[in-house]
């Protein structure tokens, strides 16, 4: 059976060139980067080079890049580390209501420890409400965090404006750029954020490695205690092949980003156009302005049917998609992001995320639309909310 992968927001394949770059660091250069002997120094050299390269690619200084195990750890660290370091200054944090679970569940835990959390609403396209954000600022606010681009609906948030607002009040800004890195041209020096989370596996790098950019001079407590790695701020033996692959993946991604983005966006646009034209009772979630939407993302609600049954129907035809967010599947709650943009629970339940990648083809897009059309008809025929004539029942 042919298989089509349309879940690039969940993870991407490892670029063969990245794999080739990593492989000597599994097999030959196996030293601990913290060891003083030659084996260790060789490993350390690779880590330094990776750090330099990543810093250069995002407009940071090398000593502002802290390697972590990935996006979730970076998000945890940004939140917990700031709260701990600034507890004398205040205990109030502000974040958008559509953050990734790595942020929201961490904030929930911090609330139990007495931290005050304000969640800022978004409009129906998923853009954070800046006036609501301004009003939420208090004298004890220490951090504003907003994701760069949303993982479910692909909306790109106005981070520069948030930075402007925060700076007027001397408040730190963190952004979760896990989805955005690799898709958007991010330069932290221009952006002005204090912290930024990103992860290698979202742009054809290896899984299990990411980073937190921490601007020099920012007060920050450790999350993981241990040895002297990462300038004593993050203990744990450095994942040498991981960081080497991370840097190479980012380099290759940036190298062909414009061309790849144009291509991926053309696939997405073709998909959106066909679905909206050929399948009734659908709603595209997220930004309508395609410039303010991740080039890879198309998120649709299919009315009168449930998302998981769409997911498994497509899966049986070899097509991999995600219902809502991959992280929330398995839970029975509808996605918090979809509720935040004002979808009813019913519509939220019937939502599927299609995320395209540069490996996909136009022919695949057409095959998926054709398959999707029959899948939706079949499931609607089974739905008590829809009758066979295609008319809505009992509305």
């Amino acid at each position, binding site marked *: 059976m042919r298989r089509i992968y349309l879940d690039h927001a969940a993870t991407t394949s490892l670029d063969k060139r990245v794999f080739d770059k990593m492989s000597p660091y599994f097999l030959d250069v196996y030293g601990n980067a913290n060891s003083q002997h030659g084996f260790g120094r060789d490993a350390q050299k690779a880590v330094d080079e990776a750090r330099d390269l990543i810093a250069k690619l995002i407009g940071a200084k090398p000593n502002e890049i802290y390697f972590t195990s990935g996006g979730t750890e970076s998000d945890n660290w940004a939140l917990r580390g700031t709260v701990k370091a600034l507890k004398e200054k205040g205990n109030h944090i502000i974040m958008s209501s559509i953050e990734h679970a790595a942020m929201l569940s961490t904030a929930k835990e911090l609330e139990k420890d007495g931290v005050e959390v304000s969640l800022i609403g978004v409009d129906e396209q998923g853009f954070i409400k800046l006036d609501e954000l301004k009003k939420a600022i208090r004298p004890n606010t220490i951090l504003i965090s907003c994701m760069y681009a949303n993982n479910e609906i692909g909306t790109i948030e106005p981070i520069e404006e948030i930075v402007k607002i925060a700076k007027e009040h001397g408040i730190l800004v963190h952004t979760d750029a896990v989805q955005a890195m690799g898709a958007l041209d991010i330069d932290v020096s221009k952006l002005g954020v204090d912290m930024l989370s990103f992860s290698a596996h979202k742009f054809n790098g290896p899984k299990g490695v990411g980073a937190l950019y921490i601007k020099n001079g920012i007060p920050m407590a450790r999350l993981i205690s241990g040895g002297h790695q990462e300038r004593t701020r993050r203990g744990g033996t450095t994942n040498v092949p991981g960081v080497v692959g991370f840097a190479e993946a980012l380099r290759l991604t940036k190298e062909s980003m414009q061309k790849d983005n144009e291509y991926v966006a053309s696939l997405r646009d073709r998909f959106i156009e066909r679905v909206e034209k050929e399948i009734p009772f659908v709603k595209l979630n997220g930004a309508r302005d395609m410039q303010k939407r991740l080039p890879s993302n198309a998120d649709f609600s299919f009315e*009168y049917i*449930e998302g998981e*049954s769409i997911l498994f129907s497509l899966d*049986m035809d070899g097509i991999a998609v995600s219902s809502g967010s991959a992280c929330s599947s398995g839970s029975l709650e509808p996605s918090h992001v979809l509720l935040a943009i004002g979808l009813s629970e019913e519509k939220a339940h019937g939502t599927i995320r299609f995320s395209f990648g540069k490996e996909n083809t136009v022919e695949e897009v057409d095959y998926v639309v054709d398959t999707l059309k029959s899948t939706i008809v079949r499931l609607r025929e089974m739905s008590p909310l829809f009758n066979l004539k295609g008319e809505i029942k009992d509305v």
Partner: protein
Amino acid sequence: MYNEKVMEAFRNPKNVGEIENYDGLGKVGNASCGDIMQITLKIENDVIVDAKFKTFGCAAAIATSSTATDMIIGLTIDEALKITNKKVVETLEGLPPQKIHCSVLAEEAIKAAIEDYQNKKAGIAKEQEEIPMV
């Protein structure tokens, strides 16, 4: 997460649809929870001669609807009332823990449909409970 038997029941569900001039109708669940199950029954001499379902829900909800309707066709209503969600799960050789509620819904839909039939037979015109719609 689903076993082959569940996937097969989802892939090729039996008894999809709605019986015209049904003798009993059971509709349970709530769209906001992500599941609505509707079962219609054709009953002759207290024997279920046909059962059909329509379900808004996940793969497990569709699989349990198919299996549960299949299990009750040919049974007397007393026998059908003894079909528990556990038996539906056993027939499907297991469901993930977070999907057990789908089998409960199937049991409830059968019971509601039989109750509807019994009420009608007893001349009690009981309105079906309205379920919030999309």
